[in-house]
């Protein structure tokens, strides 16, 4: 046998993602429906028992998939709720998920951008200043073990109230800044850790080369460390943007349940609206997935442009 025929080498067309995604989605939906039945069964049986009816299997299945406060809502219930809160509402309405998603997204992006910048700055400092690495790094790590929700009220009191109460920044802006601060706080860390690793990843020989040029630290940084750290940077950024979103959502709690996906989640939770929680969760995940995907896309583009992808 021989490897003849094609005249051009390796036109590696990546196989599409559509079919696998569809198949996996269908499988997950099937498992989900089964799970919904299984988890809600005893609740549904309680309801029937209260009404003193013995349900047929069909009735039971139907009931588990249409409960108002299920343990696990059926996918179509979430879909309906999402539809009702997106397509059926003006996007500026407080009842529109799109509006809430936007509120959260803006804080997420602000937090992500500042977290990334902070993370990069810290990583640069740590890689270049020995006393920073030795004294700061342990405390950066310790800072991340402080439970954010515990310090969030303090951010609110010290930050939000300072801005809003003493500095006269508008309520909305103060809230936004407080949320973005929490996002920043959470997202800088993966960036710092990943980048420190990345900045130190160049081959020894490549660093030696820079030494022979007596390149300044800045030159070594821009021309060697930074390019070499790119794969680390983008992986870290993917983690960071997901965490930023979590931060923004967490930050929506102590600023006074207001607008945003976090507030939706909480409100849903106060009133036992399981389906509303799930639809907010769905919105959050969708948002996260889009953000992570976009960062990934940006990363691939940059790495390709740099000629590192083969």
């Amino acid at each position, binding site marked *: 046998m021989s490897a003849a025929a094609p005249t051009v080498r390796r036109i590696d067309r990546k196989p599409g993602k559509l079919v696998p995604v569809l198949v996996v989605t269908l499988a997950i939906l099937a498992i989900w429906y089964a799970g919904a039945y299984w988890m809600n069964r005893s609740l549904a049986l309680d309801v029937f028992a209260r009404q003193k009816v013995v349900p047929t299997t069909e009735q039971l299945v139907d009931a588990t998939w249409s409960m108002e406060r299920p*343990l696990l809502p059926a996918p179509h219930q979430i879909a309906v709720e999402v539809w009702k809160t997106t397509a059926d509402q003006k996007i500026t309405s407080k009842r529109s998920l799109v509006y809430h998603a936007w509120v959260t997204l803006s804080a997420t992006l602000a937090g992500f951008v500042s977290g990334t910048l902070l993370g990069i700055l810290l990583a640069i400092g740590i890689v270049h200043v020995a006393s920073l690495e030795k004294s700061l790094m342990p405390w950066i790590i310790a800072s991340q073990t402080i439970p954010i929700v515990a310090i969030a009220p303090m951010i609110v009191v010290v930050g939000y109230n300072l801005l809003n109460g003493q500095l006269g920044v508008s309520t909305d802006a103060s809230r936004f800044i407080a949320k973005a601060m929490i996002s920043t706080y959470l997202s800088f860390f993966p960036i710092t850790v990943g980048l420190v690793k990345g900045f130190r990843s160049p081959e020894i020989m490549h660093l030696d080369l820079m030494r022979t040029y007596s390149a300044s630290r800045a030159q070594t940084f821009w021309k060697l460390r930074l390019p070499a750290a790119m794969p680390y940077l983008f992986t870290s950024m993917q983690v960071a943007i997901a965490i930023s979103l979590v931060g923004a959502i967490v930050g929506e709690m102590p600023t006074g349940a207001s607008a945003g996906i976090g507030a939706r989640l909480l409100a849903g939770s106060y009133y036992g609206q399981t389906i509303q929680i799930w639809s907010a969760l769905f919105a959050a*995940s969708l948002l996260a997935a889009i953000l992570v995907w976009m960062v990934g896309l940006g990363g691939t583009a940059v790495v390709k442009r740099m000629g590192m992808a083969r």
Partner: protein
Amino acid sequence: MTSRGHLQPWIALIGLFAMVALPLDSADPTLTLPRAGVLGWSVLVATALAIVAAIRAEQSGIAGVLLAIAAHLGAFVALHLLPTVAGHPGSGYLALVLTSWLLAWALVSELSAVPRPKGFDGLLLRLLVPFLFGLWLLILWEIVVVVLKVPSVLIPPPSAIGARIATSIPTLAADFRQTFLKAVIAGYAIGCGTGFLVAIIVDRIPFLQRGLLPIGNLVSALPIVGIAPIMVMWFGFDWPSKAAVVVVSTFFPMLVNTVTGLAAAQPMSRDLMRTYAANYWQTLFKLRLPEAMPFIFNALKINSTLALIAAIVAEFFGTPIVGMGFRISTEVGRMNIDMVWAEIAVAALAGSVFYGVVALIERAATFWHPSFRT
């Protein structure tokens, strides 16, 4: 010590003059350091000696020792005077604090520049620098909070937190056991484990890589706050529901990092495996996993802190009446902010030790990586 032109000692010299001349207490202009007895004088002398040693930048540990003595004597006197000047510090007091701080900073720079000796001394030196940094963080915190009279329900002084820790050891220990030893450890192990396994499965089965990863990303960023109530609904009040939250939040970093790491092997190394007709698992274990280790450890490190936060946050949503998160949320309501900070201190300590252990394992396991070879 090299002869790099340090600015710090010169600024400290200005501070020294200010310490001599200016009053410590704005309510009592006659109280200056030279008039504060033996302590006051010893601070001035120590500071002067340290400045001279630092400026002459002599090749020796002497400068370091002098800096250490002056900085900490200064801190001691500042703390000693704290009750007297609370609410009305004089400019001399500020000079005392800032100068001591500056000397401590100079000390930290000196220590960082020292080539690290081997063995136990090296370890001590490694720990000394962050310890000093933290100590000064606490000293300044104490002084700022007391001097500015910040209400202790907002930010308590470290001394109050320390006192609270001392009197609440049994409670703190019980909370630690509940949150860290049960929820965090279990959740971390399961979360990192499944993240890793799923990454391998996804890597092994390209169909899943294309089908599951996009959907996996969907699940990835489920906010802790949102899933915590659901997990309580599903797994009950006790620690398993907290562990479940930890699992969900550690899963994604592990998945992403492992998938990236598995792709990191050099083309030539891969070719080598091809020439051996190594099968998938052999290539995985002998080439791609070792090459992925730096990435995997990256995730393990990020997760070690994330897990703790997740478990604590999860406890805000229904728990038995023990646990670090439980304590934090209820004590905030009771205005026992010192207890809240005591828990935070325990969390920070536990988290840092956890991280440190992972970092040590990383060093041992990826000693060959360029980042450790320099």
